[in-house]
């Protein structure tokens, strides 16, 4: 008999007996049974608070009614949810709230979506009996970007304060004053800009009345006038579900539903960063460069020109003189068609995309260790982990909603949090142990952890024996990585390393989360292999709460890889080098496919610079900001014979193109994205595109057909059906099946439920393979001439090259601009204070940035975000590549302050 079955007990609610699980609240049960209990201060994301008293119900034997939201059911409890007394109390409470609330429904933006209004209607509380008394005083407040605050409407349910604390851990607002004068406010009533506010808008999302609103949506429309479309967020790879509110073809508001995968939580980008869609700067017609200027041309002319130019290059220099960069921002269907165009129509494997710059090391490293290069577990697994090791991931900024899961696990569920990061990122404040390693020494630190685990007998011998191979090689390597030696290499204190090793190894389930701090090194693949070693050594794979979890940076970077927008693999990672795959895909696409592996991103740029690549087709990428050593990239692009960019804006890269094609945003088309947890999710058309912009899948089809092919698809759904037919891991996918919450691959057939955890019982490649890895220093280390280390990354409120985020009014205000983060010690040495201009020089170039003095940076290390054209960090970075993954070393180079 299962434990749960014995633990179940009977309670009586409104005269009926029901069996319930332990730890069920009265409200949980009522929800399950469809019994309506009104609540104002309850939000399932938060701990019960019991302030509004609206959910009171009668509990037999209790003197006073009890709050349904907080009362845990016990055996034989008898509950009545709507007696006369309860009804009367609820009416009184609603009446009291109305008596202290402006009668402002006629002009209130929340009208129609206001819980107080809803309950007043339901309980028939009209002209309140208690009206006419004093209203609570409202103290002056600054106005803020994005978040509108009208505290006269506040009912003090405390949800905003609690969500800012319990969920976001931003602690920006609190209750001030007492009693009737209580007001939610910032410290001393300052602007949110001067607080720790992260502008996630969770407070707005949870406010049950009109006190907190989306400031810029004010007066745009009544709640019921908006057309609402469910879709997936276009920023990072978390895959948050969005609800776009649209009126008159304008996105007026973005919300997320409480029952979404992300529980209604969004970050500042997903919640407020939508202006780019309706931006007047959007491209509306194809542009042709005449001299130094662009002129608008018709689609027919553009497509004809492109076909003619590419045909000429192909006939004169062969198909490999043409290359294409696909886009991790575009849908699966578009990526699939793009690589199909390159391979079957143009006839080259020269197709790659920005995954090269983020997780190429992951794809390579995990594939040889486990047989699959994707995140092994699911996002919601994290909350079940006993220990979480975060290495090289600034999760709360780069993947904010996954960051919330990490925080919840550590703060509420008792998980041990180990953070390995050279910077004092937010997670370090909540960590049980923080190992601040010198950038580029991850292999040493990981080997050190494994050394301690072996030495202290914490390895999972059974797992190693049954599930893995080549352990002996690792066993031979580890003895030399003593904590003391690792301390010498990395600067991580030996005792902290020991502590971290124990925390990770002793947990029942331990999860590793990593991102570009691991991958963007010349030792990227080595780093990934070391993580795989660590997880296998402790048996932390194939179960909930465990895993090796690379967080993918772009909304659809997982999908773009899955779709084969890579030079060496077809959709589903079927190898170009294998004849069987070539035959299979060639047959499906009705052509014979080239067998030579194509060029990667940086190699394409090099080939363009040396003239071996003459034609380039870039869809939705901006290498002029995103690639290392952009000075070199610029020269390469200038050197091309024919250069086409397809994008939504005239980006830094598009400005160099001969031909620019106007594409569509996620809001204008149907399709799918695949999130970092391998979940294929829908995007849905919410608005009409501007001008003559075409969806990217349509453009690719048009280009193919202009080049003599006969691609014909009526809809992205049809393209997905073709993807399913040629991609084993997507075999069971269809728009119909993924309609609600998506499906996680592998999903080989129509009956398969999807796969939340990979490698259960058996690795994709059979046995997991250990790879002994020795520490190698980064390609460029500080020296007398360039004495400091420059490392790059992202900010919470910006995304990638800023093409999308920086179009949103207010977004630049809520974070630093073109900043270079520098430690107080170095700042003192160079006589710098926050806001000063600082010139940074590396062997590639120099830029001027705004100094930001912060103890987030440790002495000797400068951090720069790469979002800003004002101070393009990638003029400084080192294009040295990992030998296998060809990923550049964005995370370490030597720099000096001029």
């Amino acid at each position, binding site marked *: 008999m299962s434990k749960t079955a014995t633990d179940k007990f009977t309670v009586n609610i409104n005269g009926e007996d029901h069996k319930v699980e332990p730890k069920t609240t009265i409200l949980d049960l009522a929800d399950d049974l469809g019994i309506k209990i009104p609540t104002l201060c309850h939000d399932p994301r938060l701990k019960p608070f019991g302030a509004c008293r609206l959910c009171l119900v009668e509990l037999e034997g209790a003197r*006073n009614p009890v709050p349904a939201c907080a009362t845990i059911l016990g055996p034989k409890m008898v509950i009545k949810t709507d007696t006369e007394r309860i009804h009367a109390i609820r009416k009184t409470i609603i009446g009291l709230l109305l008596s202290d609330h402006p009668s402002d429904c006629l002009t209130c933006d929340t009208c129609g979506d206001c819980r107080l209004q809803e309950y007043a209607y339901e309980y028939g509380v009209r002209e309140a*009996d208690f009206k006419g008394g004093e209203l609570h005083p409202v103290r002056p407040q600054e106005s803020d970007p994005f978040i509108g605050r009208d505290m006269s409407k506040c009912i003090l349910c405390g949800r905003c304060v609690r969500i800012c604390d319990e969920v976001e851990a931003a602690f920006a607002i609190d209750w001030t004053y007492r009693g009737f004068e209580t007001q939610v406010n910032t410290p001393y009533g300052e602007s949110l800009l001067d607080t720790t506010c992260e502008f996630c808008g969770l407070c707005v999302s949870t406010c049950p009345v009109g006190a907190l609103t989306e400031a810029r949506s004010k007066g745009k429309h009544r709640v019921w006038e908006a057309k609402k479309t469910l879709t997936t967020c276009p920023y990072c790879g978390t895959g948050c579900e969005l609800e776009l509110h649209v009126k008159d073809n304008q996105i007026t508001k973005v919300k997320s539903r409480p029952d979404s995968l992300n529980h209604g939580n969004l970050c500042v980008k997903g919640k407020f960063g939508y202006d780019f869609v309706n931006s007047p700067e959007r491209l509306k017609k194809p542009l042709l460069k005449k001299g130094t200027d662009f002129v608008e041309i018709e689609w027919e002319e553009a497509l004809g020109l492109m076909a003619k130019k590419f045909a000429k290059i192909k006939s004169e220099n062969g198909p490999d003189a043409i290359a294409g960069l696909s886009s991790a921002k575009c849908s699966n269907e578009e990526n699939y068609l793009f690589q199909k165009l390159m391979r079957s129509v143009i006839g080259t494997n020269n197709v790659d995309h920005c995954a090269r710059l983020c997780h190429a090391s992951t794809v390579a490293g995990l594939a040889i260790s486990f047989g699959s290069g994707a995140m092994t577990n699911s996002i919601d697994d994290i909350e079940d982990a006993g220990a979480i090791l975060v290495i090289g991931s600034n999760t709360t900024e780069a993947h904010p909603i996954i960051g919330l899961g990490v925080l919840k696990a550590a703060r509420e569920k008792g998980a041990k949090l180990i953070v390995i990061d050279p910077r004092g990122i937010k997670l370090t404040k909540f960590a049980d142990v923080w190992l601040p390693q010198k950038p580029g020494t991850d292999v040493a630190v990981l080997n050190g952890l494994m050394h301690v685990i072996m030495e202290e007998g914490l390895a999972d011998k059974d797992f190693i024996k049954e599930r893995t191979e080549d352990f002996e090689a690792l066993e031979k390597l580890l003895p030399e990585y003593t904590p003391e030696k690792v301390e010498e290499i990395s600067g991580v204190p030996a005792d902290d390393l020991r502590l971290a090793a124990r925390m990770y190894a002793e947990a029942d389930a331990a999860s590793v989360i990593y991102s570009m701090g691991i991958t963007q090194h010349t030792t990227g693949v080595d780093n990934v292999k070391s993580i795989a070693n660590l997880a296998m050594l402790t048996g932390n794979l194939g179960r909930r709460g465990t895993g090796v979890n690379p967080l993918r940076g772009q909304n659809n970077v997982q999908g773009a890889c899955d779709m084969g927008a890579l030079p060496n693999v077809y959709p589903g990672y079927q190898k170009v080098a294998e004849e069987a795959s070539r035959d299979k895909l060639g047959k499906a696409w009705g052509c014979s496919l080239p067998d030579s592996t194509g060029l990667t991103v940086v190699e394409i740029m090099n080939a363009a610079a040396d003239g071996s690549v003459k034609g380039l087709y870039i869809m939705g990428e901006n290498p002029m900001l995103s690639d290392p050593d952009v000075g070199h990239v610029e020269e390469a692009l200038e050197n091309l014979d024919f250069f086409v960019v397809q994008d939504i804006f005239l980006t830094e890269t598009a400005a160099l193109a001969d031909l620019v094609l106007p594409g569509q945003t996620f809001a204008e088309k149907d399709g799918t994205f695949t999130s970092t947890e391998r979940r294929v999710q829908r995007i849905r058309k919410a608005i009409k595109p501007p001008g003559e912009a075409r969806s990217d899948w349509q453009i690719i089809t048009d280009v193919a057909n202009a080049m003599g092919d006969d691609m014909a698809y009526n809809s992205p759904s049809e393209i997905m059906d073709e993807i399913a037919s040629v991609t084993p891991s997507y075999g069971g996918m269809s728009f119909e099946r993924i309609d609600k919450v998506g499906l996680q691959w592998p999903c080989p057939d129509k009956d398969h439920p999807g796969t939340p955890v990979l490698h259960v019982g058996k690795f994709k490649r059979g046995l997991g393979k250990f790879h002994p890895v020795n520490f190698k220093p980064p390609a460029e280390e500080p020296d007398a001439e360039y004495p400091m280390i420059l490392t790059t990354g992202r900010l919470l409120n910006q995304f990638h090259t800023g093409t999308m985020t920086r179009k949103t009014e207010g977004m630049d205000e809520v974070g630093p601009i073109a900043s270079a983060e520098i430690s107080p010690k170095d700042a003192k040495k160079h006589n710098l204070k926050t806001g000063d201009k600082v010139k940074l020089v590396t062997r590639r170039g120099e830029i001027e940035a705004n100094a930001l003095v912060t103890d987030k940076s440790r002495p000797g290390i400068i951090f720069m975000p790469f979002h800003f054209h004002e101070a393009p960090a990638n003029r400084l970075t080192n294009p040295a590549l990992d030998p296998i993954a060809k990923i550049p070393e964005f995370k370490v180079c030597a720099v000096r302050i001029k």
Partner: protein
Amino acid sequence: MPSKTKVIVGLGSCGLAAGAKDVFSAFEKELASSKVTAELGQTGCVGLCYREVLVDVITPDGKVTYGEVVPKMVSRIVEEHVNDGKPISEWIALDDNGGEEAPFLAEQKRIVLRNCGQLDPEKIDDYLAVDGYKAIEKAIKKMAPEKVVEEIKASGLRGRGGAGFTTGLKWEFTRNAPGDKKYIICNADEGDPGAFMDRSVLESDPHSVIEGMLIAGYAIGAGEGYIYCRAEYPLAIERLGKAIDEAKGKGLLGDSILGSDFSFNIKIKEGAGAFVCGEETALMASIEGRRGMPRLRPPFPATSGLWENPTCINNVETFANVAWIVNHGAKEYAAIGTKGSKGTKVFALTGKIARSGLAEVPMGMTLKDVVFKVGGGMKEGGEFKGVQIGGPTGGCLPAEIIETEVDYDSLTQTGATMGSGGMVILDQTTCMVDLARFFMSFAQNESCGKCVPCRVGTKRILEILDKITAGQAEEADLETLKVLAVDIKASSLCGLGQTAPNPVLSTLRYFENEYLEHINEGYCRAGVCADLTKVVISQKLCRQCAVCIRHCPVTAISGARHELTEISQGDCTQCQVCVATCPWDAIAVVSPRSAEFKDEQSEESAEVTTE
């Protein structure tokens, strides 16, 4: 019998407020040159607050307590009593044969206050001399922790902070709750206006509280204790600090107490002035450095309290009982009191009572005996109207039910509560509506703002009471008042909101006629509600001396000596200084029921018409 002469001045807050410091200095000076050598010492409060400054003179002939001592009396006391051994009979409050205040103490049973006013609170030796710390020694050496819990359970002791939960059960729950770290908290955030028994115990006998906490720590398995004391009690905090240091010095606090493996430390945390922090969950939040705001229970502190560890919270008076119980045995304690309420309760008697002060009486004494036997009856011939009992959120009981026994259950039945033991005696000059308004205003000010019924509901009740006392209410407002009071009581989150309507509900229950008089007639029988009364000069009685004109602080009285004087009703603030100073009793507060009121009324309207 003491061999040496001692002079002991009561230096509790009540004594200090009455000028004890000057008296003490005067004795210092006088005794420096006295014939007979006398030791000058201090003690706390014996409870006779209405006779402060109190001075004990202990000679080989016995102990004499003088009351209402002022510095100029000191030389005579030293001369006649200290030097010549002749007590000054007309100043004696108490002596070994009785004295005029003897009846105050005669009916009391002093357990909590056993040492108050009897020893120097700043000398641990004084406490040790009266079997101090014998109880913890007995517990550690002769009793298993479980046995201590059993003993407290058997004593029937209930929490003296107000709610009256059985102390032994609370200890048992905390003892049995899983957790390595447990805490004892002493709630010394005594916030009820008019209640000062905890302050008195802390100032007069701090070691009894510390010993009670030690015993609790031993019984429960806690190693750390907090005393959460309101910052408005600086003397209590100072003496507690000294007592903790002294106890540590004697090995009675700290590591390995009395050589055992029991260790216990106490920290003092000062409150910041919020009444609601007397509520246990708000109190813990405050200790943790968070906003003092009550949270939902369960979980109760016994399972998840301070920093989510099992925590036992009792108040000062509860802890002060503990050592006595361990020393004398549960049986002796349980023999005192009624079936459901054992032991004694300390009351702070205030209001229109002859002897206002602290009295500790056995549970089950009738209200009548408390007021008339212990308290000496009404002050200045006032007419007994009722008592307000249980602090600001207690209830008002009328004279008719004065036979009610003072215990938890009987008081709850009447609609009042035991509360922390505040007892305000009321006479005919108290308006019950105004009294309810006063207490509601207190509750409203002290609401933390978290839950709707307390935050907004008490505000609306207060507004209705304002309307009634201003004569602007209708009878329908009474219905709203009742609905609000009942719903707030049933639906508030914490004890503050759940009891805040009690003054309203109990006055409505026993004194509804006064509400109706205010509403229907604009009549306040106590003459308190300023909007419903007028101060008028009877021209018949007035001798035109103009004393009133000189005294009126707002120059509302026109006229001059040998002239007709008149009060301008628009300017009058009804401070009643004129009423008090008129040598001819010619000025009176009048209500709508008196002829003078109507005369004024018609004159006013006449004025309006002529203008």
